């Protein structure tokens, strides 16, 4: 039996996911018995739709010219169409409006209300309406997966399943590559904040408007999802105490260094509180990572600290996390151990 997939968003993440589907097709079919058909690929101005299954190879060959494909239909909107296609899984990879969580939030509710399982790489819905989404999924007996929303393919949400015999006490993490890149450059090369930010923008690590990254909103959103998942909380981003790094000066970095300390933009969840702020850490702390990497330190009752690190952004990284979520859904709905 085929899993029928609807993909919303054919940007970098969506395209990388399709490429991974192609690359791993044999493995999925033969080793995991996961057979799939991509029925719809939605963009803001239309959609590729073929109920027999879209030819992924053809779409990938067309790259950005996919609108010239015979399956392309102008002005079809995901929100109107996903309920008509008898989909098993809806995958949302759209960019999030940080204040409203849209359009992903509406896509997720629409899919769940129409008995479609959900995978998302869009953070907004989960740091704004975590409880509502889970309540609806539970009511409908559906699955919602979103590993890519926190640290991309670093398996930090799914680590929960591996720690059922333990107890997590606290989370300390670096969850935003842009702010970590800036602080790393300030520490290692002694450059000013403004210079490090400009570098990050030139290298494509920071957006033209870097506010969400440097003021801590992006990390706060990820922290909410992570803490809700690992601590079974139902918090929203409004409950995070957020301080950015834009006022960190070279002088502060030097003063910290003189004590063997480093300033890092930490996301912390412990004792019911959520904090994102610049903190002093020991130079030899495992949280002292360089560049755009993400790192998460879980303090546990029975195993002490558990540290996991990796690239927290990128098309293939997120695409790979989505594929993993798809495999997980396939296993659960087909009752495969």
């Amino acid at each position, binding site marked *: 039996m085929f899993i029928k997939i609807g993909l919303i968003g054919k940007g970098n993440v969506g395209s990388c996911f399709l490429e991974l589907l192609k690359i791993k097709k044999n493995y999925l079919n033969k080793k995991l018995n996961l057979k799939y058909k991509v029925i719809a690929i939605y963009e803001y101005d239309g959609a590729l739709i073929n109920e027999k299954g879209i030819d992924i190879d053809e779409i990938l060959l067309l790259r950005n010219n996919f609108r010239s494909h015979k399956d392309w239909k102008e002005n079809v909107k995901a929100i109107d169409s996903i309920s008509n296609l008898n989909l098993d899984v809806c995958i949302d990879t759209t960019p999030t409006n940080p204040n409203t969580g849209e359009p992903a939030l509406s896509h997720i509710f629409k899919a769940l209300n129409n008995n479609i399982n959900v995978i998302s790489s869009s953070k907004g819905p989960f740091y704004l309406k975590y409880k509502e989404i889970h309540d609806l999924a539970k009511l409908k007996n559906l699955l919602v997966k979103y590993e890519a929303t926190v640290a991309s393919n670093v398996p930090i949400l799914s680590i929960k399943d591996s720690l059922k015999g333990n107890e997590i006490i606290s989370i300390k993490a670096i969850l935003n590559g842009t702010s970590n890149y800036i602080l790393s450059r300030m520490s290692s090369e002694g450059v000013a904040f403004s210079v490090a930010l400009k570098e990050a923008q030139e290298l494509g690590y920071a957006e033209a408007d870097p506010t969400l990254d440097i003021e801590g909103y992006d990390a706060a959103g990820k922290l909410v999802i992570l803490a809700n998942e690992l601590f079974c909380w139902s918090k929203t981003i409004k409950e995070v105490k957020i301080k950015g790094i834009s006022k960190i*000066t070279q*002088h*502060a970095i*030097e003063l910290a260094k003189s004590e063997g300390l480093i*300033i890092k933009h930490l996301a912390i969840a412990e004792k019911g509180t959520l904090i994102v702020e610049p903190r*002093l*850490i020991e130079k030899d702390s495992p949280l002292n990572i360089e560049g755009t990497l993400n790192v998460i330190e879980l303090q546990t009752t029975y195993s002490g600290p558990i540290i996991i690190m990796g690239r927290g952004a990128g098309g293939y990284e997120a695409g790979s996390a989505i594929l993993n979520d798809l495999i997980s859904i396939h296993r659960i709905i087909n009752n495969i151990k």
Partner: protein
Amino acid sequence: MINLEVRIPDTPGCLIELIKPISNNGGNIFGILHHHDKKINNMIPVNISFELNEELREKKLENIKQELRKSQIQIDNINLGIEQNNFIVILTGHVFDTDVVDTIKRLALKEIKVSELEAKFTEISEVSDVKFKFNFPESFTKEDVITEINKICQEKDLILIRS
């Protein structure tokens, strides 16, 4: 007495690397506790207790820390006995223009004493960064101290960077 908590690789000769800097800096070692049962990733937690000459204590301890770091020995905690309740914060903002003496006095009234202060700024009227080392009574937790500092920071619009 100083109690040092470190992690060393479970390989021959590593314990010597731990003892050497303490001995080189005139440390009188009282005891070493090797937690083989808590070995993680081939790293063994070790507690070592020693005394240093009071007058040169800070300088010697700094030398020991540096030498241990050079030997790739990870320091988890340093307990300085009576001086254990101290820590460092950096305040950023108009630390001087908002009367740094008042800040220090108000904290002292709460028994939080500044033991060291180092400042960096371009002009006294500009934003400055000031590192404070605090001592506080054993009856306080670190979070109690942070709460008191935070109150002043909010009032004076200063940014607190803490550990």
